[in-house]
Structure formats: C-alpha cells, structure tokens
C-alpha cells in the first residue's frame, strides 16, 4: 500500500448555528480547505463525508458547492466515529492507489434536534428503557471511581483542564475556562455527572485533504504522514463486561500502534474522545497512555496538561470544542495536523512529531461502543 498524507485541513468555529444545515456547514469547510490547498476541484478523486443526522446525500450537497460533482461521493454513518470512519475510507482509497487526492469531511447540525441528550437508535432494548449516553457514561464513572478509589474531583479536573485549553482555541464552542466549583455546582445530568462533565450539542463541520506523497508535494503548505488508520466495531455480547475498560478502543489502539510501528510512549499529543469527563480517563488508559486505574492520578498530577508529559486534548477536546457528532473525528485530525506542522497558534505544543486521534461512540446495547476510529499522524522531514 502507498503512504498517505494529510495535505490540508479546515474547520470554522463550532457552536450553535441553527440556520445552517449540515451540508451548508460542510461546504464552508470545503471552501476553506480548497483555498488553502490551492487545488482546482477537478483534482478531487473522491469525497467521503461523515454524518449521523445530516440526511441522505449530505456529502453530495456539500461537494456540489465547491464544484466537486461526478467523482465518487459517499456519506458515512458510524455514530460518533462517523468522521473518523470517513477518514479511514479516504485513507483506504489513497493507500490502495485507486485515488490520489481525496477529501474526508464531517458535518452535523444538532440544533435541529432540540436540546438535551441526543436521541439514540430505536428498537434497542436499553434505549427503550430510557438509556441515554450521559447515563451510560455516568455508570462507567460510578464504577471507575469505585474500582480505583478515585475521587469525584478527578472528573471535575478533566473539565477544568479541557475548558482551559479551549479558552485558547478560536474554533471552540466554549472559549471560557471554568473552575472546579463551577463544574461541581453545574446542573445534575446523571449522577455523578453534571452539565460541565458533558460535551455540548454543537453544530459544525470540518474537512481534511488526504493525498499521495506526490500530490502532497504540489499542495500549498505542509503535509504529515498517516502512520495508522483504523476502524473497529464493538464486540457484541450480553454477559459480564468490565465497563471501565473500553475494549473497542483498546483493540483499535493495538492495531494502530502495530500499523505505525510505534509505542504509546512515542506519542507526543492526543486528541481523544472526551464526550464526558470520565471518557478521557477511560480512553487514556485503553489507549495505553497511562496504566490501568492510573489516569485520574496522572490527570491530577498535571501529566495531561498542555505543558505536561503528554498533552491530551490540547484543543479543548469535545468538552470545549463541542461535539458535532460526525465532524468531531475530522476536527481532531485538523488540530493534530496543525500541531504537527507548527500552525496551532496559541494551542501549539513544543515540537510534536507524533499525534494520535481517537473517536468512539454509538449507544446500542451489547457493545461498549458501536464504532471506534483511531489515527496516528507523524511528521515528515521533507513535507512537514
């Protein structure tokens, strides 16, 4: 298979944008991406768009707005991993040699769904009983705190850290830092989770350009290598499950590290799926970034702060940036690309060479998540 590069990235500020549907939001990101890349629309060989609520043919409607119509276009639905899955398919197209220059995007308008917890799939025995994602992660949080004797304040500190990072991110939904007391005193959602332990429902879109090395050389600006691209589904069973160990993430991570020929200790920064504050602790452990049951202590010791041992969610994560479901995986890749190419502005961490992005989600019974996607990006001395 051929090497694949991220040769461009674009997303505009996330937030409440009720007047713009997913395709309109996606089109804005595509316009920015094509302008930055300096490529004519005729160079695009295929387009993959991740969206859960954007409707049929969302990606066609978006791509038409930048003069891309005719080549293969796909809309990909994989819940919170829709954007990551779109990138994985784009990566496959370039790696296999069937395409040289491919767009992966993600877009969502959640304002149209109203407030509160996102609706989950119907005809699911747990959803029919009143399950919502905050409740699922609340139970994981209760069990994690119980099993590892972790203080509830660790959950508050995840939100404080990521909101602090987000205060520096001009594209974040929330750009204000918060105190531990504000998090703790925010509205109860599902015990022990409060409102500020939960990512907001956000409207937004993001896009990246994936290409062969040859095309990456032509494009304006910089490129980084995709060292690993992985999607996994949840293993279905209804017997005992350790809900403090997100198996789908652990399996995807093992494959990603093997594909990249890297170890967790080689990673310089991480954008992971912190839909809820507990998610960051669970996923940091499942990604092998810290020992089992040790993420809360690492967090409290400042290991995952922007100036710590391993910055986790230096962009502010889902807790600050917001979570336009299908767009999140692509926005993470934008942030990682800008970090590795020294274009992250106030968010810039010192000289990162390897970045990992991770999205996982989907509330269906019998699995820890429906889909998970992990990417590892690596600098290239000539192109970065």
């Amino acid at each position: 298979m051929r090497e694949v590069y991220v040769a461009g990235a674009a997303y505009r500020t996330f937030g409440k944008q009720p007047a713009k549907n997913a395709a309109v939001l996606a089109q804005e990101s595509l316009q920015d991406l094509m302008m930055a890349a300096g490529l004519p629309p005729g160079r695009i060989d295929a387009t993959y768009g991740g969206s859960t609520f954007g409707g049929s043919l969302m990606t066609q409607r978006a791509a038409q707005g930048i003069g891309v119509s005719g080549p293969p276009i796909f809309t990909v639905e994989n819940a919170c991993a829709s954007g990551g899955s779109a990138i994985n398919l784009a990566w496959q197209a370039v790696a296999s040699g069937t395409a040289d220059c491919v767009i992966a995007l993600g877009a969502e308008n959640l304002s149209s769904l109203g407030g509160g917890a996102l609706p989950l799939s119907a005809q699911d025995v747990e959803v029919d009983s009143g399950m919502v994602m905050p409740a699922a992660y609340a139970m994981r949080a209760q069990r994690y705190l119980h099993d590892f004797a972790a203080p509830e304040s660790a959950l508050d500190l995840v939100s404080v850290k990521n909101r602090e990072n987000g205060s520096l991110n001009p594209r974040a939904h929330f750009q204000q830092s918060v105190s531990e007391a504000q998090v703790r005193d925010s509205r109860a959602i599902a015990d022990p989770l409060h409102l500020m332990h939960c990512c907001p429902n956000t409207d937004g879109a993001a896009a990246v350009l994936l290409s062969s090395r040859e095309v990456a050389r032509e494009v304006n600006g910089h490129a980084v290598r995709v060292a690993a691209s992985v999607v996994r589904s949840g293993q279905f069973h209804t017997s005992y499950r350790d809900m403090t160990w997100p198996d789908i993430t652990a399996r995807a991570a093992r494959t990603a590290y093997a594909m990249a020929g890297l170890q967790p200790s080689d990673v310089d920064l991480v954008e992971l799926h912190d839909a809820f504050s507990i998610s960051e602790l669970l996923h940091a452990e499942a990604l092998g970034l810290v020992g089992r049951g040790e993420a809360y202590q690492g967090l409290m010791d400042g290991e995952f702060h922007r100036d710590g041992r391993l910055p986790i969610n230096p962009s502010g994560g889902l807790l600050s940036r917001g979570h336009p479901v299908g767009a999140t995986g692509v926005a993470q890749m934008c942030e990682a690309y800008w970090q590795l190419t020294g274009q992250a502005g106030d968010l810039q961490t010192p000289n990162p060479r390897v970045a990992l992005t991770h999205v996982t989600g989907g509330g269906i019974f019998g699995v820890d998540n429906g889909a998970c996607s992990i990417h590892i990006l690596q600098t290239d001395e000539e192109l970065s």
Partner: protein
Amino acid sequence: MNADEPIPQDGEASQHFIVCSDGAAKLKASRCVRCAGAWFPARSGCGACGSTAMEDFLAGPDATVYASTAVHVGARGFETPYALSYLDVEDLRVLAHVRTAVGGQPASPPPGTAVRLFGGSIGSTPPQATFLAIPVAGQDHEPTEDAHA
C-alpha cells in the same frame, strides 16, 4: 419492553420476562448450545458464534448491581429523575430501572448492592410494563416505599 403490554400478573409472561406468584420477575434469556454464550433478550441465533442452536432459560430474580446512576436529564418520554442500574443476573449483564431513594429522590445504589427483580411499570409516555430492580432489605440503599407499586 412492549409499550402496549399490560403488567404481567401472577404466572403471566411478557415478551422479555415472566412474573412469579410472589411478584418476582425472571428474565427470558437464551444460551448458545455451541459456545454457551448467554443472551438477553433471548435470541434465535448466537451473536457470538452464529449458531442457531439456542436453549431458552430463565434468569433471576436475584441480581447484583454492577453500576448505577440517577438520571436527571433523560430520554424523551421518560419522567425524570429515574434510576438505572446495570445488573449482573447469573451470566447476564442487564439494564434495569432500580427503585431506591435517599431523601425522597431516586439514588444510585453502589456496585455490589443485592437486588431482586419484580414486575412493574416505569414512568414513560406511554407507560411501559417492565421488570424493576429493588434492593434487598438491610443494605444502605433501601427500597422506596412505593417500590412495589
């Protein structure tokens, strides 16, 4: 659960559970003859190995809380707050509404709490007949006064 279904009475069966003469509920589960995988709700084919050789069995009513939460912002159509628990019921992990209270509010029984399943209904629109978990007396989390209502 089937929203249109009345609460099963003594000896009657719902789609997913039966109610015994003492009001306790047992879950209608199935086990794969080939790989022994246990499934709830009962399945016609094994989700692990694909075999269609399945045996039905009843699980419960005794169960143990794996994790719980009191939900304050919940699914549409459900009256809040309500408490949910993941339960270990024999070989199964099952989600159930749990009836406990501290200070008059639904509470989250901690991991390890012993519970028993009963037939009942939950506050949703429309009301649903279902099975409920109620803590066994003598623990920190007591059942609500109306738990058996």
